[in-house]
């Protein structure tokens, strides 16, 4: 019976494979570069949402500074490349290592607090990062405009519109890698301690395990993986910009995880991919003029995507904790119990 309740272990690999072969299968939406780019970005956000799920869903850490590590991956890679410090692959690796270090330092400091205070403190650290890239210290980060990636120093199969499908595949690959890593971590013994901390930190402590070390481990892994995703985002966006470091980005991650459903892994990925895809499309919808016949006091707020998003978010938190994937499992459990 318990086996039936599990999400089939074949579904995800098949889905990933379908996405992987779609661009070369001839006439379908994914054979056009425009959508490939959008989907590539969506895959990166899906992975990013998953790393946030590791923190929030699996370890119970409500961090508001996660964008810092995503941005750190983007900026470090871009700076190392543009200043000709290392070649691409080495830059990528060094950027991820530096991001992991940064996550360890920020984590060690902010994990001295817990719960809601932790949320506030991580928000402050995240915002400090946002300010630093915005201010263009030492002429490194380019200030408000960000820095364009010097594409001559990037492997050439990623460059140019014709090669968008390689970017798409890279994004899909990195998403699969992050998924695998988090699947592996959350099922490992450390992952079980993460969940135990989320459910009852005091009990973990009483059992003789130091929760702080495990929380720091979770924070650092999530940060490093976010940095890795950042390096791919740099390729897709072609530049490093302050918006990748903003608290708004972290809040979107929170929305993705809550709406998709925390702790199920695929829920966060689905939330991230769908959110990223829909916000790109939503702009077309709100500018299409379909709202013009409504009174102005209503059409104004409705044309702001964050209005409907905020309301849906509030309703999900209040009435449907578990989001989409939670609802799926509940429905499935009901169907099975009826049989």
């Amino acid at each position, binding site marked *: 019976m318990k086996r039936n309740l599990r999400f089939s272990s074949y579904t995800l690999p098949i889905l990933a494979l379908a996405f992987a072969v779609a661009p070369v299968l001839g006439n379908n939406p994914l054979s056009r570069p425009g959508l490939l780019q959008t989907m590539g970005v969506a895959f990166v956000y899906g992975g990013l949402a998953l790393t946030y799920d590791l923190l929030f869903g699996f370890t119970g850490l409500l961090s508001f500074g996660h964008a810092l590590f995503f941005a750190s991956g983007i900026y470090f890679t871009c700076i190392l490349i543009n200043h000709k410090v290392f070649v691409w692959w080495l830059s990528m690796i060094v950027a991820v290592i530096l991001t992991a270090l940064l996550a360890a330092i920020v984590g060690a*400091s*902010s994990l001295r*607090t817990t719960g809601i205070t932790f949320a506030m403190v991580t928000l402050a650290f995240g*915002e400090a990062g946002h300010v630093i890239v915005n201010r263009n210290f030492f002429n490194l980060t380019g200030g408000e405009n960000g820095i364009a990636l010097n594409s001559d120093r990037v492997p050439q199969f990623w460059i140019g519109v014709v090669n968008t499908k390689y970017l798409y595949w890279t994004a899909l690959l990195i998403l699969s890698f992050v998924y695998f890593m988090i699947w592996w971590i959350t099922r490992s013994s450390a992952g079980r301690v993460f969940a135990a901390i989320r459910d009852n930190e005091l009990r973990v402590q009483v059992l003789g395990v130091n929760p702080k070390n495990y929380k720091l481990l979770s924070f650092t892994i999530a940060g490093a993986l976010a940095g890795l995703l950042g390096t791919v985002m740099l390729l897709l966006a072609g530049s490093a910009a302050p918006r990748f470091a903003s608290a708004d980005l972290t809040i979107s991650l929170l929305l993705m995880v809550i709406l998709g459903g925390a702790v199920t892994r695929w829920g966060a990925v689905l939330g991230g991919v769908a959110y990223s895809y829909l916000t790109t499309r939503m702009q077309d919808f709100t500018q299409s003029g379909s709202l013009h016949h409504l009174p102005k006091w209503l059409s104004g707020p409705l044309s702001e995507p964050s209005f409907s998003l905020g309301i849906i978010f509030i309703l999900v*938190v209040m009435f449907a904790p578990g989001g989409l994937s939670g609802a799926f499992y509940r429905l499935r459990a009901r169907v099975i119990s009826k049989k």
Partner: protein
Amino acid sequence: MDTFILMGITGIGLGALYFLIASGLTLIYGLMGVLNFAHGALLTVGAFAGLWFATKVATATNTTNFLLSMIVGGLAAGLIALIAEQLVITKLYERHMDQALVTVGLALVIGAVLAGWFGNDLHTYPTPLWFAKGIKIGTAIIPADRFMYIGVAIALLIGNWALLKFTRIGLIIRAGVENRTMVSALGINVKRAFSAVFFLGGFAAGVGGVLVSIYSNGVSPLIAGSYLIYGFIVVVIGGLGSVPGSFLAAMLIGIIKQYANYYVTGLGDFVVVLLLAIVLLVRPQGLLGRVNS
């Protein structure tokens, strides 16, 4: 020396603005354990309500009308805070994480409504002429509005203190911050204190919104941006739940930020976060906070 005094007083003025935000945050957190992410949105609500009053109702720009518009801004923000609390927060009793999450949603919705109604452009806030005048202290000339921020913050601190000290609801709030379970066990309706705190916090944020819109030369849905984050930093450094702690921390941060920014542009934000990290390492409960038993 002139710039030194100017920077110092501007810093205190800025600190006063931070305090207006932080006082509500710290009380709401202290009493209910709720982290209110919608507090920045309340600030914007106050600014727009004040602007509406100053441009549509009492259009003559003089000091009385300005003060009235400030109170209107405060009342509007307080009212929205109260509605939000009744409609959403109370439904999630004791679910602190979810309460914090819901306020994120509220912030999105309120921000979207304001942006939809007023657009993202900067609207000028009509102010009495004397705001722009300089007041001489020694040889330094200080813009007069700085003193108004400080005055309002001090008035609010005193009002807050008097309310907490001398009224029954204040007594319940203080007792609730100390030990909420015990207060409810004694048969006192703590929920009414919750609503009062939400209203007061919203009121302070609304008043702060009007002042912020003068400090940043106009009203837009985006003005709250960094103030909420500074509010959080102030609350943590001052000690969660402590209003005097917030006042102290707000002044400290305002001054340090101004001086650091004067010597190296943009260094201010960095120094403030550094200060936060140091406080967390040395005194995690904040300047005037107590360790929870």
